[in-house]
């Protein structure tokens, strides 16, 4: 049983499934965030309240956190094994052609993790009562936050790195699940570009608009 659950292929399978679940979550998050662009705070606050209180969503929230933790844990575990597999590095470096951003997944992933911690302090921990703020008015919390230039720079830089991470993650997940096809794999690669640009660009647009509203 241990060999099935923790073989290299199984670990990658878990990473891919967890990653695809997180990929599905981001458009939902972005759709709700787009309501921040409205001048009326009510639609966003209602949506945020719904997401925080509806029982089915709460179940999905738990699944989302488990998925996130598994993705991070397995990612670090796999990376440590990968480093151990080559104890002596090449003096002339590695100049082989690779898919875009695939060499830096651990670094872009760790950056996104740091970003998530900051993001949780900014929003999620308010809901839990760990950080001071009004959990019923995340609209104002967001608008106040993006008045601070430092947060804008941090968020925008992290969105860029999130895009790099998502670009390789999107097509790599399908390959890991064994879904490689003569016709559909090129389509998935195009979708990876579209997704990895559209999602971070959407979040970045919101941050920039709120910043300019000051």
């Amino acid at each position, binding site marked *: 049983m241990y060999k099935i659950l923790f073989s290299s292929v199984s670990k990658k399978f878990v990473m891919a499934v967890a990653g695809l679940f997180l990929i599905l979550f981001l458009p939902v998050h972005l759709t709700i965030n787009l309501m921040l662009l409205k001048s009326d705070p009510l639609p966003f606050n209602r949506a945020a309240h719904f997401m925080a209180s509806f029982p089915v969503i709460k179940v999905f929230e738990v699944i989302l956190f488990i998925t996130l933790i598994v993705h991070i844990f397995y990612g670090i575990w796999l990376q440590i094994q990968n480093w151990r597999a080559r104890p002596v590095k090449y*003096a002339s470096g590695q100049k082989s052609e690779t898919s875009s951003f695939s060499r830096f997944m651990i670094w872009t992933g760790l950056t996104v993790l740091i970003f998530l911690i900051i993001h949780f302090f900014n929003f999620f921990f308010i809901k839990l009562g760990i950080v001071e703020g009004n959990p019923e008015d995340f609209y104002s919390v967001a608008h106040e936050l993006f008045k601070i230039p430092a947060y804008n720079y941090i968020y925008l830089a992290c969105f860029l790195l999130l895009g790099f991470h998502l670009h390789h993650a999107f097509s790599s997940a399908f390959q890991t699940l064994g879904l*490689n096809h003569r016709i559909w794999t090129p389509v998935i690669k195009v979708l990876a570009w579209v997704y990895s640009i559209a999602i971070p660009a959407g979040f970045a647009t919101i941050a920039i608009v709120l910043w300019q509203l000051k």
Partner: protein
Amino acid sequence: MKLTLKIWRQKDSKSKGRFETYHMENVSPEMSFLEMLDALNKRLVEEGGDPVAFDHDCREGICGSCGIYINGHPHGPVPGITTCHLSMRYFNDGETLWVEPWRAKPFPVIKDLIVDRSAFDKIQIAGGFISVDTGSAPEANSIPVRKQNADMAFDAAICIGCGACVAACKNASAMLFVSAKISQFALIPQGRIEAKERVRAMVEKMDELGFGNCSNTGACEAECPKKIKISNIARLNREYYKAY
């Protein structure tokens, strides 16, 4: 051509290695890389030095013996060829070449540029075969094989097991090699009978030997001298999931 060679020298597997610098003059652009090393070794022997140890056999690009990491690429910077087919005309006069052995924990250095690639043999022994009673060759067309599958199986079977995929991969993963060996059997009816046992055993052995995990970077495909495709890795993954 004049060249400066920075070659990894290591007395044996237990000794600590280092780069030695050699200046080569009058290198013919028509020479292969291995012939250039032969010329260096001839000079070293004449000077009473220790020649550079490197693997080679057929020198026709089919045995998979030669494998040298040159200037950041396994088998050198030219795609689709082995080191023995690498011509010196691809380099520039006055260039400095870094010449290293494959670097991977399961491929320990034996001496200089020679690594122990028996890890690949161990993976093959674990399941890379079809169990049959030996005897006279059966009638070729007694088992129909779809042409497309036969072609893809052949494309996988041309893997020479040189280890360039492991050398190129940032994780030292052997997935391209293993996937080629899985695919050459998985695609034909004769190989389906033991497909589940084969993929389980070969992946288990690969993990046990300490190869890294596949990150789907595609470096292996880019550097494979036989142009084995990473679609084989997706097939390996499918076969593995089906096996449980």
